[in-house]
């Protein structure tokens, strides 16, 4: 079991560019979560999917952030027109069951927007 896989591990973009982050959840897990970690805000929820369906995107900045899960083996988080304040570690997690279950986190993607 390789755990949750996230690529790339590091990404540097210029202001205004697009960034796409990838997540491969643990095989067989039904729920996939995206979180963002910064020194100022700590660990914040962004969005999650259950059985590939988007369930809650209440943490997503509405205009530039989007997430998809086209199949059970991967999810993407896309940030359009990146801004310096988007710099953070983006963490993907998956869990076997969607509720009250252990969330297993990937290693994260460290995004730096210059």
């Amino acid at each position: 079991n390789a755990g949750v896989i996230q690529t790339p591990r590091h990404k540097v973009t210029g202001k205004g560019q697009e960034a796409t982050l990838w997540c491969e959840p643990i095989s067989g897990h039904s729920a996939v979560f995206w979180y963002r970690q910064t020194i100022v805000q700590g660990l914040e929820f962004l969005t999650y999917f259950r059985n590939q369906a988007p369930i809650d995107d209440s943490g997503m900045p509405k205009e530039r952030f989007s997430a998809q899960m086209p199949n059970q083996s991967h999810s993407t988080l896309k940030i359009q027109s990146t801004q310096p304040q988007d710099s953070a570690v983006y963490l993907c997690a998956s869990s076997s069951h969607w509720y009250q279950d252990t969330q297993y986190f990937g290693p994260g993607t460290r995004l730096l927007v210059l």
Partner: protein
Amino acid sequence: GQQVKQSSPSLTVQEGGISILNCDYENDMFDYFAWYKKYPDNSPTLLISVRSNVDKREDGRLTVFLNKSGKHFSLHITASQPEDTAVYLCAAPQGGSAKLIFGEGTKLTVSS
């Protein structure tokens, strides 16, 4: 507002002592409470969790105490070791949802 709050950003404990980490929450609909451990430059990993139908759960050196009337839960680590040095994050899912609301974290340092 911050629904899950850890008021102590740091804690230092002597090796062999008891580490007590605290977390307060606002929403009395929370029914699942978790503690995650995070090393620098690593992702959080679940240490222990408890559902709201119990007041206490033990697992080896770890014990979670839940005080529902006080909207408070804590993690006790007995016989603290230097390898326990890490950031500890408390978390609870927002009412009926799977998404976790995390506290700010407490950096525990166990000195030898």
